[in-house]
């Protein structure tokens, strides 16, 4: 199984440092076995989220198997939903936002993805964290 077949992971935080830090933890777990992109901050470099940058991160982490997005607070979710809608139609149904905590969700999703699991399994693994 080639590496680019694994589901990609996108981390979206209001803070670039949080996004990068979470990505560091993912890399430590799974190395380069999953496509990964982290994005944080608004267009001015302050705290916030940026639809254009999220679209860029989805492109960077793109896999034909799909992309799972992990978000922190509300604006990150709303802006990620907007970014998905603005992606090419052929890709939209292969991009999901996981209802999971950012750091733990990203690590769990990436670990699942590194084993070659399909997108719905990656999402379910991340979302188990919310089920308790």
């Amino acid at each position, binding site marked *: 199984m080639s590496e680019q077949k694994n589901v990609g992971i996108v981390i979206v935080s*209001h803070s670039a440092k949080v996004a990068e830090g979470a990505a560091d933890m993912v890399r430590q777990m799974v190395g380069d076995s999953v496509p990964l992109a982290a994005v944080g901050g*608004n267009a001015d470099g302050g705290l*916030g989220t940026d639809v*254009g940058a999220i679209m860029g991160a989805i492109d960077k982490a793109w896999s034909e198997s799909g992309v799972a997005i992990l978000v922190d607070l*509300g604006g990150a979710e709303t802006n990620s939903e*907007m970014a998905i809608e*603005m992606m090419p139609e052929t890709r939209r149904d292969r991009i999901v936002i996981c209802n999971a905590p950012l750091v733990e969700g990203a690590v769990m999703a990436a670990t699942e993805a590194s084993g070659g699991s399909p997108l719905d399994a990656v999402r379910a693994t991340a979302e188990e964290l919310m089920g308790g």
Partner: protein
Amino acid sequence: MDQDFKRRLIMAMADAIIAHAEELTALDSAIGDGDHGLNMKRGFEAVLADADNITAKPLPDALKAIGMTLVMKVGGASGPLYGTLAMGLGKALPPEPSVADAAAALDRAIADVKARGKSEAGQKTMLDVLIPVQVAFAAGGEDLATRLPAVAAEAADATVPMKAIRGRASFLGERSIGHMDPGARSSSLLVQAICSVFNEA
């Protein structure tokens, strides 16, 4: 709608947001993350910077362009919400709308905002201003441009005793009570700005 009128609408909205940016940020500091004024200012400055290009378009396309600019530049949840509102209006409005067209388009755009924010009336959001304004607008009558700003201002005031259910303010639970919702205030400011241009016409 001619280019000059579209320009006056954009300038009035941008001026209102920019002039009240600190107030909006202060409201957001009380119950949110304190960036609503700065975010909206950034978005409307980008709209102003592109005003020549935007106002040259027919009204539906101009609204879509404004919506896209807000989505890309605001940098908070209010970007997709106001962007969705503007794009929804752009989709629903004819190039030369009547009052009835505008009320119907606002109703549809509000439905888009509800879906985007997964929110309803009474949850202490911009919808708590937009919905009463749409209702008053749809009821019609004389002096709409004079009456709607008062409807909007009262509706924004009415968010003060509400408990936030959606958005960052919802994290505060009961502590969100007693503060005006910043999105309700920015919506009220935009309604006032738009009506002021129609009043001058």
